[in-house]
């Protein structure tokens, strides 16, 4: 009886601790969002979101906000297809053995390299060796360096989690392995792949160190969106334009900004960043669900 009572007590304590941790985590999240929203509530306005930066007042963050979104799209365009293919290879073709172990070890190693080191590597390769100077493409490639292993690892896990029954069901109907992967495995793995995209996106929005030496830190003055020439580095649409992102901008104004408006600008920018990440996460989940419904027809 005492054993029973002790077990029940332990059960209750464990439950309480786990609840406590969960509440703590959620509380931190709300504290961060709340703090910046409250600090930024007076500053957030269309002219702040879409206006041009100023050296003498709060100004706007339009160009850097654009760059963050641009960097996100460009990096995901490179990372998601390659990462998914890598995941497919690792989960479906590579098998188990020394080769896959080495690849997996490398994936973990690259993912954990400090991003400032990746930035220096990017400087050497995507800025100097290519003679591109500071570009969005250089930044996106630097971000790809540590996002690709992450994406392919998460894609591999998502694909491995697809039940073997579904695979053999498709194969038994006389489908090829590739048809099975495309029409059964990937659709079922969509939620897991979306998780990969979201985690990757978080690191793109939030990354500053790897972009300092690759995408640039100069504050853009004004973007001419009518300039659609993709090879013109002055066009905001070009992958070769210098692309200071919101995170980098926050770092920059905090570290070297002079004047009493800096705190206000930094807080409001941070609030926008947090909201951007939030909006992207929700959007990606919704889109993933929609996509899954489309491809499975149910």
């Amino acid at each position, binding site marked *: 009886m005492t054993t029973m009572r002790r077990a029940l007590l332990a059960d209750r304590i464990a439950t309480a601790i786990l609840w406590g941790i969960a509440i703590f985590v959620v509380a931190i999240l709300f504290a961060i969002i709340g703090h910046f929203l409250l600090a930024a509530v007076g500053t957030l306005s269309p002219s702040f979101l879409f206006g041009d930066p100023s050296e003498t007042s709060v100004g706007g963050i339009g160009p850097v906000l654009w760059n963050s979104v641009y960097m996100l799209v460009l990096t995901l365009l490179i990372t998601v297809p390659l990462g998914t293919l890598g995941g497919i290879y690792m989960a479906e073709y590579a098998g188990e053995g020394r080769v896959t172990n080495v690849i997996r070890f490398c994936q973990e190693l690259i993912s954990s390299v400090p991003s400032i080191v990746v930035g220096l590597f990017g400087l050497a390769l995507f800025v100097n060796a290519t003679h591109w100077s500071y570009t969005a493409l250089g930044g996106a490639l630097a971000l790809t360096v540590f996002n690709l292993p992450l994406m392919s690892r998460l894609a591999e896990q998502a694909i491995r989690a697809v039940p073997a*029954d579904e695979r053999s069901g498709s194969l038994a109907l*006389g489908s090829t392995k590739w048809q099975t992967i495309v029409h059964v495995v990937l*659709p079922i793995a969509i939620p897991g792949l979306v998780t990969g995209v979201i985690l990757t996106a978080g690191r793109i929005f939030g990354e500053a160190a790897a972009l300092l030496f690759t995408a640039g830190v100069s504050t853009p003055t004004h973007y001419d969106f009518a300039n659609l020439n993709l090879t013109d580095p002055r066009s905001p649409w070009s992958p070769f334009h210098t692309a200071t992102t919101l995170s980098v901008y926050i770092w920059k104004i905090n570290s070297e900004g002079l004047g009493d408006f800096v705190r206000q600008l930094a807080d409001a920018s941070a609030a926008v960043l947090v909201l951007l990440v939030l909006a992207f996460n929700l959007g990606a989940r919704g889109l993933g669900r929609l996509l899954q419904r489309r491809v*499975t027809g149910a």
Partner: protein
Amino acid sequence: MTTFTPAPPATTDPDLLGRPDIRPAVAVMRAVGQAADPAVNPKLGMRTVNVYYGMKRAVRDVDLAIPPNAVTAFIGPSGCGKSTILRCFNRMNDLIPSARVEGEVLFNGEDIGARDVQPVAVRQRIGLVFQKPNPFPMSIYENVAYGPRRHGLKGRVALDEVVEKSLKRAAIWDEVKDDFRKKSGLALSGGQQQRLCIARTLATDPEVILMDEPCSALDPIATLKIEGLINELRSSVTIVIVTHNMQQASRVSDRTAFFTMGEDRAGYLVEVGPTLQIFTNPREQLTEDYVSGRFG
């Protein structure tokens, strides 16, 4: 007929739907009149087939002939290799890296186990229904259209036709006809899911359907429906069914093959013949012991 000690189905129990039991009579009819002669144009066959998992031999020297448009049941104790043998017929053992099949596996007289034969081509003509119903997480329509689509069938009209026909053949049409385009295959009951999986296989118009204990995850009523469906299909498709349920074998099959495990733990074929004979007058003592429940 002196040793007529049939398995329980041959008693006069009414079935679960309360109908009189005509199974013994049907079984006799089949054994006497319909038990197809496998010696003439067998649909499937094996010549000295051995299956290995790594170094271990799992199946030993199986010689077997399976007649067309009839139901053949594989029975035997757990681990005797029934499923492994069944899966040789559509090359599913290829999916297990350590598995190796030796000997000839014949389909319409052709060795489909040969290296230059594409497993995909074999599986398009020989379907497999699994132990656990495994519909895709798609609509019922997409589940059935899946095979034909992969084999290159295009066009709404053609696909609609195949889907409807297959659902009807699998005796599930009446239950799903109102919402089969929208409803997920996973939203069906276990028995319906299994009939959907049979419909999905039928949609590829196979000559043979292999069934690997298709009712072992189902309740008795659902099982009865599947057995009724097998009965409907027997005239148009060759069916090979693995079952651990001897009553089921006696109810649905024309011919029965009994497998057991040797001292080397490898499964082998003890005997094969008309179902009634296997259950009432087997040639081998091992079969007699097994069907009468005296087995280990």
